[in-house]
């Protein structure tokens, strides 16, 4: 029931945001290799996590959901722009059950589409001035600027680790990278922005940092676990794709910290090869090693601990607010993470 409630509310807010995204796409040329492709990823349907958190935080704090809609559109457009660029950078093949944008076109076209999406994401922020006034709009603008910078810094960290084939990472490095690459833009800023709008700028948004961080890290670890254990059709990405891409997940870091020297050497050699030369059977071998060394179980447990931390933060911050569906939505996302059995 909890899952159904969460999924239907996220789908509802996601659908409204998607409609808003379509409104911001110019109806002009060049269409074939630009404007027609901008809505491709958003149309494939994501979880609607970011707009959901932003709108829910706004309404939970007494705002109207319409007041958060422009910011939700901006967040979702930026998220999809990041995905387009990430897929090029990671050389991924599948996104949300279909070939990635650069696979369907070219790298150059995909990068250009990502750039256009980032530029279009600024438009709803300007529109905020009409509905929220200058002060609140400026503070949301500065939230978004921080979000983009943190995300690219996190991406740079991980791309650098892959380029230099860094294999001696610790859990702390992972937590730092994921804070930057995922948490700010997936959870921390959407909640902060929603609460700023709901309180008309009267709240100190720093109170949500821990909540968003714990939620974001738990969410990312679970997503990485799914890449190893899920059914490809259901998951929408290639299984073991993260191993092939050399993504520095918590499972990989745990394996490299705990395996024998000979196994460490084998994994390091695999990761030193260009992505297209990495073989599926070697990725499967690494997956088995992760199972043998209980790296996947360790990651599952860690994600639940962090979701527990998020639940505690949630009750501390939100318990004083009236019981609303939107407050319940945020709680149900955390409970979903705690009770997830993949």
């Amino acid at each position, binding site marked *: 029931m*909890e899952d159904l409630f969460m999924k239907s509310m996220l789908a509802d807010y996601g659908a409204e945001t998607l409609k808003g995204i379509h409104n911001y796409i110019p109806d002009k040329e060049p269409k074939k290799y630009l404007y027609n492709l901008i809505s491709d990823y958003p149309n494939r349907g994501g979880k609607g996590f970011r707009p959901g958190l932003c709108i829910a935080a706004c309404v939970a*704090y*007494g705002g109207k959901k319409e007041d958060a809609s422009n910011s939700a559109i901006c967040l979702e457009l930026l998220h999809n722009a990041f995905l387009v660029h990430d897929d090029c950078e990671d050389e991924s093949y599948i996104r949300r059950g279909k070939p990635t944008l650069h696979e369907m076109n070219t790298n150059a076209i995909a990068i250009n589409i990502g750039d256009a999406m980032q530029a279009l994401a600024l438009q709803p922020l300007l529109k905020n001035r009409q509905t929220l*006034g*200058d*002060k609140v709009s400026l503070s949301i603008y500065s939230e978004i600027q*921080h979000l983009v910078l943190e995300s690219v810094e996190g991406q740079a960290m991980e791309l650098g680790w892959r380029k230099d084939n860094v294999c001696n990472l610790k*859990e*702390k490095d992972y*937590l*730092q990278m994921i*804070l*930057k690459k995922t948490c700010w833009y997936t959870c921390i800023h959407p909640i902060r922005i929603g609460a700023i709008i*709901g*309180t*008309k*700028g*009267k*709240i*100190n948004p720093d*109170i949500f*940092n*821990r909540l968003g*961080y*714990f939620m974001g*890290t738990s969410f990312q670890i679970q997503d990485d676990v799914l890449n190893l254990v899920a059914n490809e059709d259901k998951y929408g990405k290639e299984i073991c794709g993260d191993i092939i891409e050399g993504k520095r997940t918590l499972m990989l870091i745990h394996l490299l910290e705990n395996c024998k020297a000979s196994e460490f050497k084998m994994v390091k050699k695999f990761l030193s090869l260009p992505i297209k030369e990495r073989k599926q059977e070697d990725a499967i071998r690494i997956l088995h090693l992760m199972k043998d060394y209980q790296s996947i179980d360790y990651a599952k*447990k*860690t994600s639940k*601990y*962090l979701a*527990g*931390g998020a*639940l505690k933060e949630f009750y501390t911050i939100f318990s*004083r*607010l009236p019981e609303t569906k939107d407050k319940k939505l945020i709680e149900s996302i955390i*409970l979903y993470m*705690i*009770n997830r059995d993949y």
Partner: protein
Amino acid sequence: MSNKKKEPFRKTLTDDFLNAIKNEELLSGAQKVVNSAVNVLEEEIAAGILAAKKIEKKIIDVEDIRSDPDDLMNRIRRDTHEAVDLFLDALSAISKQVGNLASSVDKETNSKEKPVSETKRESTVTLLETEQPLKPGQLEVFKFTLFEDSEKLTKMKLQKSHLIGPNNRIINSRALKVIPKNFNLKPKEEKEISIQLKLPKNALPGNYNAFISDANDNIINVLLKIEVI
């Protein structure tokens, strides 16, 4: 004795989780992970603040940067700064105008009271208005939230002005009810304030403004704007 039936205890998913974390081993593992995450977050935020301060310092030293007028990059920076200056000037002019309007309403309606004292904290004006015009006799409720972000307990005493309309037309402040009016705001506490407006049946058409402020400090300034048809 109450004849109310005792509700059977219903186990929820949260209960399952809370029961699970009673296990000591699990708790210490969770504590370790959560603490480690908190340390990373605190370090990152501190590093971010430091980086922002360094950028701020560079921007403040703008005269040094402007010293070479032939340099293209310096020209771009100068233009950007001028644009920011213009924007800030416009913003402060707007704030000043709103401040003047607020104090003139306050003076007109409450001339016997002491003038608003200066405050060290930044004062802001919040605008509350209805989407639709109101009819005489209509009841409307406005809500806003106050949040105490300092570490001190703040005593609040909210006061209201008359509603001032065209040609100094007045709707008496009795039409407004502020709930709660007197209260304490603890550190980090949030309170919802409700303003009930019951328009008199003989209210004349026009745009009316009323002002709600804290009698102890001028940090809370709420301008209520309505149209009567």
